[in-house]
């Protein structure tokens, strides 16, 4: 019985490691990603997303799009083409206060998260 329990815990731990990039903390408006398993560059990108994107919408909207592959409002596929289009949309919004480097960092992060979600 102990052996089975240990095996199950190991499997569970392995699974958690495999989806470390999409570990979600909190619910609704407070939903966040746990970046502890991100590569260093993506951790830095996540800081930009965490601070900039929530000025206008919750992170839940972004996380749900990545998890489901569908943008929650438009219903459009949320893939690599979409991440760049949304990045450009936010860059061009008069009030986003995001420069190109920040938008590129966010797009790179979303692409990374999409790859992680596909695993």
């Amino acid at each position: 019985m102990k052996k089975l329990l240990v095996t199950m815990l190991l499997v569970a731990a392995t699974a958690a490691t495999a989806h470390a990039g999409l570990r979600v903390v909190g619910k609704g408006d407070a939903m966040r990603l746990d970046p502890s398993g991100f590569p260093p560059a993506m951790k830095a990108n996540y800081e930009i997303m965490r601070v900039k994107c929530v000025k206008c919408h919750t992170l839940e909207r972004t996380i749900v799009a990545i998890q489901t592959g569908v943008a929650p409002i438009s219903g459009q596929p949320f893939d690599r083409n979409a991440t760049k289009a949304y990045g450009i949309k936010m860059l061009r919004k008069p009030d986003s206060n995001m420069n190109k480097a920040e938008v590129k960092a966010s797009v790179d992060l979303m692409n990374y998260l999409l790859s992680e979600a596909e695993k």
Partner: protein
Amino acid sequence: MFLKKNTVAVMFLLGVSCAPLLAPGTANAIPAFSRQHKTECSTCHTVYPELNEFGDAFLKNGYVYPHKKDAAKGAAKAAEPGNEWSIISGLPQQIPLSLTASADLAYDEDAVDGNKLDLSTRSITLQAGGSFRDLFGFFATYNLYSQGMQRASSLTNPANNTNVPPSNDPDLDELFLVWRQALGSPVNVKVGRFEPKLSLWKKSNRILPVPSYASTTYRVGASPFSSDATEDGVELNALLGNRLFVAGGVVDRNGQDREDGYGHISLKIGGTDFKGQEPEVDLEKDSLWDYLSVTLGAFGYWGQNGEFNANGVAQNLNSFRRIGAEADILYQRLHLKGSGSFGRDSNPEFGVFKAPVDSKAYTLEAEYYLGAPVNVVPLFRYEYVNAGDGTIKRLTPAIAYAPLQNVRMSLEYTHSIAPEGTGNIAFASIAFSM
């Protein structure tokens, strides 16, 4: 002293000249869309009711969320199986109704009745908008109540005087259906009462809907026609490619066996295209066109109206035309709008003996968006009107503040220069939608 003293007659004339500009602004901005698509007002608006680029694409797409056509059906079926009735019947899942209300305060030191501070202007408007699946879009605005300068039915508006047969209620400002991409063609067919597509912007598509732009709202003589009035008609419009929009239609005018005709063309260079798609931007290099968009528009309207006799037949007819050109320039937080219109009326006083009048009007407006999200917009508007009875110039600095996306406060000050003298009016307004 706040105002230069002039005669009562001068202020009366200025008041009369400004009164049509204070007709209530009907809004595109309706929370019904927000509820339907579960998204915030800023998806389509800067400070409501002014549309942003995506909002304009939503409007041109017949009130259907751009690019949602197939995905919406699929997602709804998969995620919400209990809503199959809506997909099969085409009925909206939410009741598509909204209310917009406003209360205004006007200060006029030379008010004719001596009531300098006027708090008695307010209005409430019922709106409906949405789509039946992706085949039809619909929109309606009904003036439930208005009081003071904004009282629509007390003004000589075209709906009241030229399109609505006697004993019909003129408070139905808009009611139309758009058959989207009719019979598989790229052509949308709009039928009902609507603002004919002439200007780049609907009259409600402003940071300050009141007053409307002189270039599209001016009237000549006794003729109630203005370019931005709602009228009963049929319009065909279509997107040619992603950046060229054309529209043309006919307007039914009561009391005569003749229809008015109009046409519009607009071209967008740079920025989000008319289908709501973002432009290609290189995230590694900078370019002026990353943030710049320029929209150019032109329109023409040819019509005929007259004074109704006791039998409701138009007589002493006035043939008129308007030609206009406009530009909309957006660069980051700076938004510039320019609008010019020229016209000719053969008999605008509906006299037995015709006295033709040439007219022209221009509006220039500069807005600057502040805040993230945008919640403060200072703007400056310059207007020039010559409708055959002398030149009137208006200079309007203003500021709008939206503490919430559905609440807008504005403060504006208008300095008018007319042949009879100068005038100054301060106008504060609070509006909210729900």
